[in-house]
């Protein structure tokens, strides 16, 4: 440590002066080779960036991006305010990297009860920056070049890009619509996997399957039989299951959300992803979690400690208190997890009515706060452009927000490039909105219908 520090700085600065011929002294020095990493190839486009901007510019009624426009429950906001403004200054500094102790403890307790198994809060639960980051950790932890990951279409768009970023290959298997019974509206339950088709996608390169139930965008709630089908294939082919259950509380008509990890042979190969944003109507808090056996979670921890390391303390403290409350009120009428789906079911029914009356054909969702509708009857407003690069539903959604002020998301956003044309007559609405917003949407739709028929 007492070594002379080599040639002096002065020497270097003198040398520099004598090499004044460098073109590098121009203030226009630029990187001359491709600067970005190859892992970004094919994942740079993001539909949300485009559609959020359009909604911000043109929408009077925004039923596009999935977030509630009503506030989170008072008990939760108060918990956050207490965490930020209270006496415990430690809540402004780093907490435990893998999850604030009060939060992982209550999550382990709460979900342990639901899963019928004892969860270790320190090893079986990890807190993340939204469910989005939990998904990222899963793909980074488990997927390598040469791996295939089965993705059920339509899918939350990040699954495809995250698999690609990890160097893996997404393999798509579509939910297929069965015609509804005469006179009835189509339900998300009418969209089903073909068991033989699903089985054919599994091979020795298959590393994982991504399951999203309740499903965004369709609102499908996978039945026990459907989950068993998937579970059997996972066990047979020794495949992991990444189970995105962020809408777990938003199930309607008395349906049950079944956790695939509770099926035989599945706990040991499943990572469950959850979200405070969806659970407590606070998407902007960005608190999510991953749960599963230590042998899987340990690898998520490795990714986490090398990417974000810690999540915001105060928000975790508040969510922990929210869950404490729900734990004591579980199943009771006062429980937020009972009240929220009740309210949203009503809103779902209003929007279904509005769309049906206007001539758009809604697919009634069993869960989530999304609803997909068929816009074929409105095609006369937006003429088809043959040989267009852009999918029809995307053009339609853009036209609709600019001309009618109503924002929705084209369904082709939720499928792979090759299959976009299968969904080009469908758009997705979000109904987690105040009554006034849904009424305003209804007015736009009815007026539009009248303009068509007059």
């Amino acid at each position: 440590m007492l070594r002379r520090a080599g040639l002096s700085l002065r020497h270097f600065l003198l040398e520099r002066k004598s090499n004044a011929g460098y073109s590098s002294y121009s203030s226009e020095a630029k990187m001359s080779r491709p600067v970005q990493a190859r892992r970004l190839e094919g994942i740079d486009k993001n539909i949300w960036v485009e559609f959020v901007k359009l909604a911000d510019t043109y929408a009077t009624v925004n039923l596009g991006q999935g977030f509630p426009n009503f506030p989170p429950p008072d008990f939760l906001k108060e918990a956050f305010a207490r965490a930020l403004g209270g006496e415990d200054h430690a809540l402004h500094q780093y907490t435990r990297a893998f999850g604030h102790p009060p939060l992982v403890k209550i999550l382990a307790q709460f979900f342990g009860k639901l899963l019928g198994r004892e969860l270790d809060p320190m090893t079986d639960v990890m807190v993340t920056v939204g469910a989005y980051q939990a998904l990222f950790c899963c793909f980074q932890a488990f997927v390598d070049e040469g791996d295939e990951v089965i993705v059920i279409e339509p899918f939350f768009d990040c699954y495809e890009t995250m698999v690609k970023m990890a160097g893996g290959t997404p393999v798509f298997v579509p939910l297929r619509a069965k015609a509804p019974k005469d006179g009835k509206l189509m339900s998300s339950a009418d969209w089903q996997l073909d068991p033989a088709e699903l089985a054919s996608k599994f091979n020795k390169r298959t590393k994982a399957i991504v399951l999203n139930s309740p499903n965004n965008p369709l609102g499908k709630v996978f039945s026990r039989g459907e989950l068993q089908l998937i579970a059997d294939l996972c066990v047979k082919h020794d495949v992991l299951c990444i189970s995105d259950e962020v809408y777990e509380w938003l199930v309607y008509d008395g349906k049950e959300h079944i956790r695939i990890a509770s099926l035989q042979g599945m706990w040991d190969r499943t990572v469950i992803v959850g979200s405070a944003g969806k659970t407590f109507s606070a998407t902007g808090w960005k608190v999510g979690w991953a749960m599963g056996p230590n042998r899987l979670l340990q690898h998520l921890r490795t990714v986490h400690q090398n990417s974000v390391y810690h999540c915001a303390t105060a928000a975790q403290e508040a969510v922990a208190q929210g869950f404490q409350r729900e734990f004591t009120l579980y199943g009771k009428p006062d429980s937020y997890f009972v009240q929220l789906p009740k309210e949203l079911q009503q809103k779902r029914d209003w929007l279904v009515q509005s769309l049906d009356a206007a001539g758009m054909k809604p697919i009634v969702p069993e869960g989530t706060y999304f609803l997909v509708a068929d816009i074929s009857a409105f095609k006369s407003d937006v003429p088809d452009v043959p040989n267009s690069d852009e999918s029809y539903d995307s053009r339609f959604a853009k036209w609709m927000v600019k001309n009618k002020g109503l924002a929705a998301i084209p369904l082709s956003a939720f499928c792979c490039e090759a299959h976009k044309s299968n969904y080009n007559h469908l758009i997705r609405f979000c109904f987690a909105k105040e009554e006034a917003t849904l009424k305003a949407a209804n007015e736009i739709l009815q007026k539009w219908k009248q303009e068509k028929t007059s």
Partner: protein
Amino acid sequence: GHPSLVKALSQVYERVCGRKIDPLTDILVTVGAYGSLFSTIQALIEEGDEVIIIEPFYDCYEPMVKMAGAKPVFVPLRYKNDGSSASSADWVELANKFNSKTKAIILNTPHNPVGKVFSREELQVIADLCIKHDTLCISDEVYEWLVYKGKKHVKIATLPGMWERTITIGSAGKTYSVTGWKLGWAIGPQNLIKHLQVVHQNTLYTCPTPLQEALAQAFWIDYKRMDDPDCYFYSLSRELESKRDRMAQLLQEVGLKPVIPDGGYFMIVDVSPLNVDLSDVDEKQPYDYKFVKWMITSKKLSAIPLSAFCSPETKRQFEKYIRFCFIKKDSTLDAAEVILKNWNKQTA
């Protein structure tokens, strides 16, 4: 990034950098500076690349570079024992580390753990090498406001030819003493930041809204008083300087020679004068790891071993050093004083 926050950041940094910064294209808000480091490295570094890291280094640089598939190349700071407390890079050694595979150099100023504030001349040498070898510079400046009397924080991105090739990283946690808010930012030219944005939209997509809103409001308040000594950027630094001096004094009274930092809130010190014999403890561990563990259990005082901030090859060079953090309230420093004053009594 939340619009009001990126606008506030662009105003503050336009003033500091003396150039126009577009809030929507030249800034990305991330989950802590840690998240900016991750987004930068994932966006711009890959297999086949080499990344120069100056040792000792904030420990995440190495695993992040490896996770991106690249090779970290280390160059140590060397301590000049000439009465000043300056550490210096061996400039020939540094120049030799640059080659055609070098994609980036990671710079950390003010430096954690040593507390060095790189001078304009030193930054110029690094800048020249970056330009000569067409290399990027990832400049971790989280402690940018914590610079003590006589020193000035210089942003390498403001040197000629550097804006186009530099990502500058900052931290709300360090700027506003809210590490648990986990908000940071990366600032640079659009053609680089756009790639960080792609990583961000594929990793966590958004950062918490309410915290960004609060931070934006704080920045507006301080932006308006950037000419005023009461601005938190300066008042925190003044407060920390007296804590730095106190910490140094406490260590000196025990017979140690701490390396007085010019910036940041860490202080490193060689503990060999304390002559704590740990040869009977696990030999494979570096001395400083054993020392810190022993100190925590027997003296109830905790610090961090410096070899945690070194590559395997260099660990032995730094194994007599430990790092103290002095951004603590007075009662904590009082308690440290009691422990240190009683140290000699017990070992005598």
